């Protein structure tokens, strides 16, 4: 595949759909979480309001260049991840910019935003930011591990690193999904997914009651707005990767919405039930429970 200018509007369209869906989806998830606590929860459009408000804050401060750039890195990471992976299978329009690289690109580009964000948070000089980053990095070292193993397993299984081809291999029947052809890998990856969603029990990174909210402690107004934007794009971009790799991808938007919802819901489901882990506990948890699954997955392929 090669770059064509038409890809730009198509990608922007994808972005537009995903941002709106993400805003609604995250609100919906919060509402569902609230319902578990027998509350009504926020209005479904609340995320739009918050976003507008944060862009509308009149004043802001900056601690330095990296602080300023942190949210830019963050959002670039989210948008880039979304665009490097084909959103809809078989659609020329919504293959985005996936010509630039394969699965490995997506796998590593996940860290782009986190790294930039960590640097920005670091420059704020706030100890809680640094503590949050320390926790986040510690946790991610083991949380991402089962996912990496699972990706390796299914790459071996399908003998390709191209996302499109992996999705293609899963077409035809539900039983062709990786979920059923390689359940170990999917199990490992989904545990890893829990660790990457910053929801309980793995949300000690933000830990609002303890270290204000970790890395973004100093971020506000439009910085925060950028990060909020990312917060609706990034999980979906990540879920798109999961969906493509494990759940047969999506050929139409309704299927896409449904699958993304269900995968997102999985983390919420676990989150409302379990209390928070400390960092060393979650590190051990991933090593003890998720890692063996991942190892088994690559051994049996």
């Amino acid at each position, binding site marked *: 595949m090669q770059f064509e200018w038409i890809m730009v509007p198509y990608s922007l369209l994808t972005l537009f759909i995903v941002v709106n869906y993400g805003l609604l989806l995250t609100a919906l998830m919060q509402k569902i979480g*609230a319902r578990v*606590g*027998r*509350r*009504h*929860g*926020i*209005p479904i459009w*609340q995320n739009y*309001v*918050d976003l*507008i*408000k944060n862009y*509308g*804050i*009149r*004043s*802001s*401060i900056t601690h330095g260049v990296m602080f300023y750039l942190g949210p830019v890195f963050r959002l670039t990471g989210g948008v880039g991840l979304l665009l490097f992976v084909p959103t809809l299978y078989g659609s020329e329009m919504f293959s985005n910019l996936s010509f630039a690289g394969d699965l490995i690109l997506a796998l590593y580009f996940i860290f782009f935003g986190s790294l930039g964000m960590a640097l920005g948070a670091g420059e704020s000089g706030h100890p809680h930011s640094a503590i949050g980053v320390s926790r986040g990095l510690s946790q991610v070292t083991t949380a991402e591990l089962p996912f990496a193993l699972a990706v390796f397993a299914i790459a071996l299984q399908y003998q390709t690193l191209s996302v499109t081809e992996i999705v293609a291999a899963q077409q035809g029947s539900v039983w062709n999904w990786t979920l059923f052809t390689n359940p170990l890998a999917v199990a490992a990856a989904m545990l890893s997914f829990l660790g990457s969603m910053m929801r309980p029990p793995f949300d000690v990174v933000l830990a*609002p*009651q303890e270290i*204000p*909210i970790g890395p*973004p*402690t*100093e*971020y*506000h*107004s439009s910085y*925060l707005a950028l990060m909020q934007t990312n917060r609706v794009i990034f999980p979906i971009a990540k879920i798109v990767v999961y969906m493509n790799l494990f759940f047969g991808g999506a050929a139409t938007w309704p299927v896409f919405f449904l699958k993304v919802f269900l995968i997102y819901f999985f983390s919420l489901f676990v989150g409302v039930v379990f209390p928070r882990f400390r960092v060393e506990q979650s590190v051990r948890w991933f090593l003890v429970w998720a890692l063996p699954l991942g190892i088994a997955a690559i051994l049996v392929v």
Partner: protein
Amino acid sequence: MKDELDKRLDNQPDGPERRGSLKDIPVREELLPRWVKGPEGQEYVVEPLQDYFCQAGPTVQTPAYTRIIEDLFNWARAESLWILGFGTGCGAIEMRPLMTPRFDAYRYGIQWRPTPRQANLFVISGYLSVKTLKRAIRSYEQMQNPKYVVGLGSCTINGGMYWDSYNTIKRLDDYLPVDLYITGCMPRPEALLQGFDDLKKLIRAGKAEGANHYAEHFDWYKANQKRVIKDWDMPDYSW
């Protein structure tokens, strides 16, 4: 060493005064100017209050856009009240029920933020001793414009039952620009919800410009604040 420091202070225009003011109330040792030796042997004075903190004052932040956009923003601000989770007095206990299923303030777009940077509503939940006032001012200044202050309970209005205390302020609006008072000792959560609703109306009407008021009358507020806070060991405006 000490003499040199004195000399250096004397040479500055407001040096003697500052040193004089330092003598009244003992300043924490960490805040005193001190000689520091760099890694290559150069020596210089570090004045923590000057060097560690931004000295700029607040400025009036005018609505930057056309009327219609400002209205949109005001609507968004009203519908998205992020409360700074800082319980200053006994009224803090009245805020917790708002998060529970019974009152569930979240449905009105109200939520609590752990850091002043991200909050735009400061609820002064009860009496303020001088010591707490200092923290409240600092937190308020660290919030971003526009920002709103709600005084909760009679203590913030006229001192309440602490009207004759040696250590409690009696009028919050002398020190911070209050947008709204909620009466009671203490007001019930329902009263709070009502108060927030009133606040929303003010915001939507563009009448909640406390932050700009604070910036405009900064000297007056500062003077009031400094009158009661005798050990003012921070910059005038805590960014």
